């Protein structure tokens, strides 16, 4: 097990540098005129253009310039310096302010997914073809069909503005309650998938030989479902949730925007819009690490859930 984890950690280093290189290259290739983008529709003064060009080496273009700027970036990165954004803020500071709130939001979304999704999935799986099963099928289909960009403003308007059940936006240092609505919205998509996955796995496992054995041994139904079936059914769900955790961290661009939560997605959106290369690469690099760790945790969890899976 230890050797497996070590090997994976080494692979992570390679994957990290590979992805930052790709992201940096994409940002480099797609960059038009970041100084003008920063100024919007205003004319830019010569003095400011000269200042920013020199500071961010924007005059180094072509293949040579790319490698010069990339290695410059990596050198600073290895010294723990993520660099400065085009507006002169330390990217390290931006990330330090953005991560806590995004993590909180992702955890709430995750909790909603696991609690509601897995529970309802097990129930639906056990009572196949019941009213509960059919109505969850319908509901999940609706949720899956409605994109977040529609769902989030509707939830905000109805639950926040119209009926005033939740605060309409969460703001910068939100409490648990104001993050609940964004968390539910964010989690609803993965909730639907988790529910469908759990339901199918439970329904399938209930027909397995070991369940029949357990039943003929006289075990109570709760124990059969709660211990034996659930544990075996969770393998595909855990895979999904692991990947989803990464998605929740980085993919909250829409939700964070609608509910005005200055987290990672919020900053990533702004960085892309203003062509702030250093900031985009900084955020994506950290997201890559999050994905890699989430994947590693999923792999380790496999072994915990299913003793037949062993890593050497």
């Amino acid at each position, binding site marked *: 097990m230890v050797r497996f984890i070590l090997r994976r950690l080494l692979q992570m280093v390679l994957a990290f540098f590979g992805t930052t290189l790709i992201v940096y290259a994409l940002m480099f290739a797609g960059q*038009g*005129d*970041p100084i*003008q*983008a*920063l*100024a*919007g*529709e*205003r*004319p*830019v*003064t*010569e*003095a*400011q253009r*000269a*200042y*920013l060009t020199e*500071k961010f080496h924007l005059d180094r273009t072509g293949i040579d310039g790319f490698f010069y700027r990339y290695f410059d970036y990596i050198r600073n990165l290895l010294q723990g310096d993520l660099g400065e954004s085009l*507006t*002169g*803020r330390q990217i390290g*500071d*931006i990330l330090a*302010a*953005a991560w806590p709130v995004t993590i909180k939001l992702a955890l709430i979304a995750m909790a909603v997914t696991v609690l509601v999704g897995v529970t309802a999935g097990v129930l639906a799986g056990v009572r196949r073809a019941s009213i509960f099963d059919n109505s969850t099928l319908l509901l999940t289909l609706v949720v899956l069909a409605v994109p977040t960009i529609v769902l989030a*403003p509707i939830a*905000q*308007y109805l639950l*926040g*503005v119209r009926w*005033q059940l939740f*605060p*309409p*936006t969460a*703001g*910068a*240092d939100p409490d648990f309650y104001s993050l609940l609505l964004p968390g539910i919205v964010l989690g609803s998509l993965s909730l639907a998938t988790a529910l469908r996955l759990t339901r199918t796995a439970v329904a399938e496992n209930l027909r397995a030989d070991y369940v029949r054995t357990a039943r003929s041994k006289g075990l109570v139904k709760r124990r059969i479902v709660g211990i034996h079936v659930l544990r075996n059914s969770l393998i595909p769900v855990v895979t999904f949730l692991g990947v989803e955790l990464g998605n929740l961290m980085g993919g909250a661009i829409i939700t964070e*925007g*609608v*509910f*005005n939560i*200055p987290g990672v997605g*919020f*900053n990533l*959106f*702004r960085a892309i*819009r203003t*062509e702030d290369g250093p900031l985009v690469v900084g955020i994506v690099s950290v997201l890559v690490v999050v994905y890699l760790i989430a994947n590693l945790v999923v792999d380790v969890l496999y072994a915990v859930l299913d003793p037949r899976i062993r890593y050497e």
Partner: protein
Amino acid sequence: MRVRRLAAWTALPLAVTLGLTACGSGSGGSGGTDPNAAVRIEIAEPQHLVPTNTTETSGSQVLAALFSPLVDYDDAHQAYEVAAESVTSEDNITWTITLKDGYTFHNGEPVTADNYIDAWNYGAYAPNGQGSSYFFEKIAGYEDLQGETPAAQTLSGLEKVDDLTFTVTLSAPYSDFRTMLGYNAFYPLPKAAFSEPGVLDEGYEQAPIGQGPFQMKGTWQHDARVEVERYDAFPGEQPKVAGVEFRIYQQPAAAYADVLSDNLDVIKAIPTENLSTAPTDLGERFQTSPASSFQFLSFPTYQEEFSNPDVRKAISMAIDREEITKAVFKDSQTPARSFVSPVVAGYRDNTIGDAGTFDPAKAKALYQSVGGPSRLEISYNGDGGHKDWIDATCNQLRANLDVECVGSAEPKFSDLLTKVKAEQPVGLFRMGWVMDYPSMENYLGPLYSSNGSANFYGYENPEFDKLVAEGSAAASEEEAIAKYQQAEDLLAEDLPVIPLRYGQHVFGHSSKVTNVELDLFNRVDLLKIEAVQ
């Protein structure tokens, strides 16, 4: 039912008692405003909070709380002195600025002429890379501060007379200099802002020290808020609220939802998608005020097919401006038929004459007689909500001129500019302009002069340049305006751009504030706003 009646019986005496106590403590003002409350105003994350480096409205709004300008503008958009006692000149070259006595910075330093001179020198010095440095280009000695290794560190045109007086010598006469001083680039900086002469302290921007009616409360909380509180030693007009929280939003839609539920007090621009419902949502709290923004379509005049002014005139005549402002903008913008905004002195209605009158038959006849191109393209930036009106314009041109017309979106305005600067064939392209200070020159100079900073369409007319220069150098404002108007008449003949619309500020506020007014620069008037008790 019984419960409700019971509630009514208890509520009635309670209301009477409350009403009586309210009368008893009624000295607080019959309007019921609370001078000890703070108000919450929406902004976007400012790019910078250094006066000479702040060029967008969010930063400018925060600075307006922290600083008091030399001059401000009255309801007729004319300049009047605020922090300055007087701004005078005999010849429009040497200006004498006298400061009012009694102003102090929030750290206790008295405001002197040096504070202005230091701040302006810092702003003009090219290696500092300040966004507003071009505001100082009219001051003598500006050239010596440019380039990678400038010859000088200070503007030779700035000279201290005594603690409250200094003179500004311009390199050429400029009649609008006094008007220009209202812009935030001309605020003073305290000695405490500099770690050594000419070097701004790194931490200054996180908690700017000014000499205005409000002082910072804590530091700038990036992406979250900037909080300010009343500065009691401010000698000018005191604000009617105890403080302001500038809350940072990335999307106006989120701010709008917060205003609807009283979680936020002022939204300075209601998002377009909410314009149709906002008047009913907010009632009397939905408001509009004049703005300086000016939207137009420009022609790449360097391209052969658009070089004939009659082609441009025909296209202008084929556009029904009223229809578009009504259908697309729900009357939140107004049709434009001149080259400067109605908010500046010297504006005349309908200077483009015939070219602005919607007449499809005449337009088509003219277009065909001069052989206009059979295919038109209108380029725009896709991130600014322009698609609807561009498509509507294209539809009109298609129907009225019998041409093919397509709208083509570039991701961002900067991408559009990159193409235009490289003189690639982008067809017509949209542009907008917002003034820095209320003067005709602030439109004519940058937009249509041969070397104008925003003249991207290659319009060159030496006679026009000459008239604008003469206007700048004129002895009085009336003479200047006369010259500017002659210059504008030349534009009407050449039609390098077609004026389309003037903007308005469309804003709203919560039920917790009153007296919300926006100035021409989309800033809430912080001396007027009041909190409801």
